[in-house]
């Protein structure tokens, strides 16, 4: 069986082998003894027929032996720094101190107990209703008058050009505004505009 066939075999397998990417992952899990029984026997079957796979297993095993051997030798020749007994006693002290701190802290609120309310329970929905009403009234008051755009005010800057020789800006915030407020009722828009212009001319003269 070549590598491609072995891959195909692995791909058709169910369980853990289905989730492993390639031979190296399968072999690593095999060496670690972490494959389920059925998967393990399938891998052994493949190893029996696939020389490439067997060679990779040998390579992996050799690498493992070198690494673990070196780590073991290193640990054997380098005793741990510090005393184990001292470290263990220190953990014991930490636990005592931690437990004392925890006991000194106020106990957590028991979630089963009802929470104490600052105000009577009926005041909360009442306050919510009042807030909604207030918001509605504010919105209603702020609505623009019919025929006006939102944000349009009674103060306007009108550009008048009486003799078409020079542009002149006139602020209508004073008298003209008064005029607009007092006399515009009952007139069409064109009439109102005409009367405003006449009023302006009179003021300019």
């Amino acid at each position, binding site marked *: 069986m070549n590598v491609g066939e072995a891959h195909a075999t692995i791909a058709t397998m169910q369980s853990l082998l289905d*989730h*492993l*990417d390639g031979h*190296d*992952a399968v072999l*690593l*899990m095999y*060496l*670690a*003894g*972490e494959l389920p029984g059925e998967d393990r026997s399938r891998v052994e079957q493949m190893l029996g027929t696939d020389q490439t796979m067997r060679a990779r297993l040998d*390579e*992996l*095993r*050799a*690498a*493992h032996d*070198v*690494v*673990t*051997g*070196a*780590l*073991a*030798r*290193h*640990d054997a*020749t*380098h005793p*741990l*720094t*510090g005393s*184990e007994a001292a*470290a*263990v*006693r*220190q*953990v*014991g*002290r*930490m*636990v*005592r101190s*931690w*437990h004392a701190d*925890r*006991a000194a802290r106020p106990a957590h609120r028991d979630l089963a107990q009802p929470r104490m309310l600052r105000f009577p329970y009926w005041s909360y929905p009442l306050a919510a209703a009042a807030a909604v009403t207030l918001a509605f009234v504010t919105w209603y008051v702020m609505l623009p008058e019919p025929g006006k755009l939102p944000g349009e005010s009674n103060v306007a800057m009108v550009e008048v050009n009486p003799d078409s020789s020079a542009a002149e800006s006139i602020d209508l915030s004073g008298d003209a505004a008064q005029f607009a407020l007092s006399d515009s009722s009952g007139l069409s828009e064109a009439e109102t505009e005409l009367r405003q212009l006449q009023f302006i001319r009179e003021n300019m003269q």
Partner: protein
Amino acid sequence: MTLSLRNPPPPVVDVTVPSDEALAARLREGDPSAGEVLAKRYHAALLRYLQRLVGSDHLAEELLQQTWLSVLDHLDRFDAASTRGGFKAWLFRIATNKVNDVWRSRGRERTAKEGLRLVVDVEAPHAGHRIEGVEQVDKLRAAIEQLPENQRQVLLLRYYSSLKFVEIAELLGCPLNTALGRMHKAMLKLKELMSEP
């Protein structure tokens, strides 16, 4: 610590030896002796793991203390039923997080130093990838230090904690295939570095 890639057979349950999870429960109640038993049980493996990862005995001891402090701080949140690998995996995860914090701060330092080197234009002696003239044991240390951090973590976790690959993947928050890939690369690279004359 296991010297084999293969997992050790499941331990025979000894009723006189309390499990990690039972000790953790006693520890939560404030029993210092339970903490001492756990500390003794994992002292060598955890300290060796930290030493190999950070490459400094002094720093490893400091991180070991920090690990136990974190264990106590978060003990209320430890749930043995939902943690794959139980208390041991949880303990090694905390230790790994401590090391990650160190690496992050080292990374910032390294960046700052590299910036400084560009300014003063001083070329430090090249650390090189060859390990020559050092003894076999020191060679290992140097070789481990040449591994990328994520490969080093998987290799050393596997060796010192004896956790399963599935548990290691979960501990590191990566897919199983990623953990296996890192382990494979780490072993081949170490073998190559160790075989160099």
